[in-house]
């Protein structure tokens, strides 16, 4: 299916992108739809991007729904394990 569902958010951080170079990411697009590469019919896809630098300034991940939920838990666990004053 084409879900068309797309959620966008702004970000502050960096990603290692095309040709191994780091760049500042400003935006993320999150959607559950067909992957380009993952061998699943649908995946949770995240594009970390800096649109100002053009279409190639993008790090893409495609995760199965279960993997995406595991990642959510892992991110939460990592944030919770850090001293609160560092993650405020």
């Amino acid at each position, binding site marked *: *299916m*084409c*879900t*068309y*569902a*797309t*959620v*966008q958010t702004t970000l502050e951080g960096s990603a290692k992108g095309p040709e191994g170079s780091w760049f500042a990411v400003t*935006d993320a*697009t999150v*959607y559950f*739809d*067909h992957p*380009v590469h993952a*061998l*699943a*019919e649908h995946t949770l896809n995240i*594009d970390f*991007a800096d*649109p100002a630098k*053009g*279409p*190639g300034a*993008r790090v*893409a991940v495609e995760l199965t729904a279960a993997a995406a939920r595991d990642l959510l838990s892992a991110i939460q666990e990592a944030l919770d394990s850090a001293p609160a004053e560092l993650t405020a």
Partner: protein
Amino acid sequence: MSDSLSAESVRITGHDGEEIEAYLARPSHPPSRGGVVVIHHMPGYDRGTKEIVRRFGELGYDAVCPNLYWREAPGADPADAAATARAGGGVPDERLVGDVGGAAGYLRSLPSSNGKVGVIGYCSGGRQSVLAACNLDLDAAVDCYGAFVTGTPPEGFPLQVTNLVEQLPSLRAPLLGLFGNEDSHPSPEQVDELDRILTEHGKPHEFHRYDDAGHAFFATDRPSYRVAAANDGWERIVEFYGKYLGG
């Protein structure tokens, strides 16, 4: 019959007179032939889509696929271009109609053209194929599992997609629909609704629905590929275009 063909990237005039990239395949025979506009799926103007364009060339049609994301991402990797287009809200319907109209005009301008042009689209392109056939003078249209021809798109998301129910009375070309019974977008009920609406309005259409197939069963590079449905679907397309684009 010769199976020789040539394929290349070209520039065509799309919506609002803007020049866009397109992928063109042309057979060496027959000397007079129909044309097919291929509408790529949401993942973009990719290798799989270009293989489909060449297959129509091998079948004896001039075939062209406009790069619907050219404006947002000229020259970009297809996946990057698709991501950019999605983040920007997708392809507006009006622009899609203009680009398909430009592609159809390009095909009709070729010296080999018999004047007849069909359209085919996959996935999101299935909906866009129906959209084009409601708004342009085309001779045949094929919808491969297009979501939201009927049914209600999700609300509150950046991609503004509406269904085509109000436009269906304007459908100007016979429609071939190919659907998987395990698909949820479009669901079998939504395909039933489309069938009913077209019947009520006296629009010629022919639907084939496959068990053991869901969405994107033509996509040979994806787990959704279903060889039996895809093979039969190609046969239905050949028969349908032979009927409406030949001569």
